[in-house]
């Protein structure tokens, strides 16, 4: 099968999977159960791994397979497992209590997605595969950022940060010719892993000290 023949199919698969990632992100915004949230994130990461694999296959760029594999191991298996274990260990209240209610959160999420599309429009010609993957990536980053603001509990903020990271990764895979340099990608994976571990410990400590994970209570630390 030649590369030119696979182009439209690959492109379509890519667009589909990217769009699904965005849909999952909006799910995460509206969702109120913590464990479901973690699972949704795992599925989103699985889609990211799929996208990386398609890109790797399409460009015969072997090191992007490595990215796909690492995403699969790290974000689909390891991190959700770690977070789930943390949830059980601290016996946390399952309900997420966002600052804004679900409908207005959805509205803001929609607005940010729109902004992502507007901002990305001048760059669509640079995309190699798929339509509007950059726009989706930007939308993921922006909505993820909004999620970190909208959540109170440290654990859910970690989760939101991870979706931001997914957006960054999507942009890297979709836009740059052969993904980022391998060293940078490995570095990012390592960073994310360490960050989650540190945050997990931090969450545990905050919980111990404040009997809550609500970061809005941290302003009591101010002198």
């Amino acid at each position, binding site marked *: 099968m030649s590369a030119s023949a696979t182009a439209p199919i690959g492109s379509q698969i890519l667009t589909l999977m990217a769009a699904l990632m965005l849909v999952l992100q909006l799910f995460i915004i509206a969702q109120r159960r913590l464990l479901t949230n973690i699972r949704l994130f795992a599925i989103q990461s699985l889609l990211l791994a799929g996208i990386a694999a398609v890109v790797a296959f399409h460009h015969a760029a072997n090191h992007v397979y490595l990215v796909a594999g690492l995403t699969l191991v790290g974000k689909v298996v390891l991190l959700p497992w770690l977070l789930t274990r943390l949830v059980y260990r601290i016996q946390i209240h399952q309900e997420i209590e966002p600052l804004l209610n679900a409908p207005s959160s959805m509205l803001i999420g929609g607005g940010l997605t729109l902004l992502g599309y507007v901002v990305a429009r001048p760059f669509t010609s640079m995309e190699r595969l798929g339509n509007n993957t950059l726009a989706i990536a930007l939308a993921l980053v922006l909505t993820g*950022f909004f999620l*970190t*603001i909208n959540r109170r509990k440290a654990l859910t*903020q970690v989760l939101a940060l991870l979706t931001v990271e997914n957006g960054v990764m999507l942009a890297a895979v979709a836009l740059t010719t052969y993904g980022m340099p391998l060293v940078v990608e490995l570095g990012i994976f390592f960073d994310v892993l360490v960050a989650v571990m540190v945050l997990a410990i931090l969450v545990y400590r905050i919980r111990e000290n404040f009997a809550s994970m609500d*970061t*809005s209570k941290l*302003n009591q*630390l*101010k002198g």
Partner: protein
Amino acid sequence: MTDFPLSLLGVALWAYLAGAAGALVFQRFEKLANGFGFGMAAAGGLCGLVSCGAALASGMPVASRSIELFPALIPLVRFAIRADALGCFFGLIVSLLAVPLSVYSLGYARSYFGRRNVGVLAALFNLLLLSITLVFLADHVFFFLIAWELMALSASILVCFEHEQDESRGGAVLFFVMSHIGTAALILGFLLLFQASGSYAFTDFHALGAKLSASRRGGVFLLFLFGFGIKAGLVPLHIWLPAAHPVAPSNVSALMSGVLIKTGVYGLIRVCFDFLGAPPQWWGVAVLGLGTVSAVLGVLFALMEHDLKRLLAYHSIENIGIILIGLGAALMLLHSSHPMLASLALIAGLYHTLNHACFKALLFLGAGAVLHATHTRNMEEMGGLAKRMQWTSAFFLLGAAAISALPPLNGFVSEWFTYQSLLQGFGSTPSLIRLMFPLSGAMLALTSALAAACFVKAFGITFLAQPRSAHAREAREASLTMLLGQGLLVAVCVVLGLFPGILLKLLDPLTHQLIGERLSQRLSLAGGLVLSSGAAQGGTVSTLGIVLMLVALLAVPIVLWALFARGARTRIAPTWDCGLRGLTPHMQYTATGFSKPLRMIFKALFRPRREVQREYDLSPYFATTLRFESHVEEVFQTRVYRPLKWLVLRFSRRSRALQAGSIQAYLIYIFLTLLALLLFAL
């Protein structure tokens, strides 16, 4: 052979570094740390003195090489030095002071034994010498800034060396803050220069002014005038000077007043003459005006001080003013294309820079010796020290004569040059702006007279008459090394006064580099013993001649005595005390009383306030207790800096609301910034 002076300069830098490191290593053994630290500083100073002197004497070429001290590990920074004539001259000043100050410190630091860490003092002293030398030699913007900041840091730590006193900490903090504000202006100025040159090397900044638009050039000039003006202690940016200099250990005060504030002068000369070139008229007017104001206000504030070291610090402001009068006149004359006269004015400024370094260091060392003996800086508690500290008082008297510009000492020579350039400057241009010259000259004359009055007060109250306190009564002469350090500086002051031809010759390469003139032949007649102003209608003067004449005149009273008074009866009796039972210290003239006429004349500036409370039983003429208070308003602190401080604090308190301590709020700040940037990119 060409490499000889430069390599010796490298030795000097390494000696300072070794002194700093050694003093830290040996800090457990005070005597060793003291001896090694200050010994290395003296050795480094000697090497620097010989190398800079030799380089200047050899009539160095204008284009000097830039050499890298050590390879840079950080991108964009080159640790390069270049010893051109300007750098060498200022290097000469710092090295010239390093030797006597280090010798003095050997004795002075002994008073800290057992109380303080002398190793740290010696190490920082070396570090300060090193960084000042590097400031003068640096050939790269970042290297210059690193040295500049190192200098500010080590100096501010030295200022609060006696850190348990509030005064020391306050002075250090003020110095630190002012210094940083100045550095910010410098960085901006350098960035503007970088935009035009595309390089960070000083060599590439040469004559860059031609490439800049007039308004940008003016902006660069103002930024540097502000930044370097803070360091030089220009009025109204001077307030850190009287706060920081007096509280430092005296050897450090001497170094700060002698050299550290001269880094500002160096920077201004470097920027105005080397980088920007061809000055517009208003630069000269601004510098001349600020210099004149600094000179007059500096000496007026000095007159009101009773704190010996604060008085000297205010005199530093005055002398910086006199130096800037020379520089400003040079800029104005350069604008009206009189390069020869401009060189004369520049020489006046540079000569005064060196002179002030010498006599101000000498006076601070003297004040240090007095402080060491009496444990107070308040002049009203001194007195009668001339009998107890004969050498120190003699040295201080010579220093006071030099700073008051009395012939034949060095201060006279440089002020004479300043007057000559101002007088001749009047004829340099037909425009009305030439009135600046005689005006500034008149103010300079006023300054000199007031300075003389101030030092009559400082010397008279401190050293003459009867001791005013128990401490003063028990004062002892300073140790041998302390006297030696002062003696060396006295020798320098005398030599610079009697044989000005030596220095004029050394200044030749400098004026040649900056203006393109060599004047020493025209300015010195009879092998450098007679000074000429270089113009037909100007004057000539010979300090050596004045001395010889004084010696000859000394014969007159001896002859008169021999003729008429020989054999007359001499009676030795106590001083006339108006019939009271003996004179007491309370009857003496006080420093406050001495300066009262001037306080009244300049009432508008000082806004003196006094309060007298009298308690009496029978008649108001026989008071039982009397309380007297007298205050002088520090105009700049109360009128400028206090409102400014208040504004800054209020703004800071308001903006504290931003820092709410909530993660969500911080995230929103970041998020909104991100959104704003994205929308801005659209």
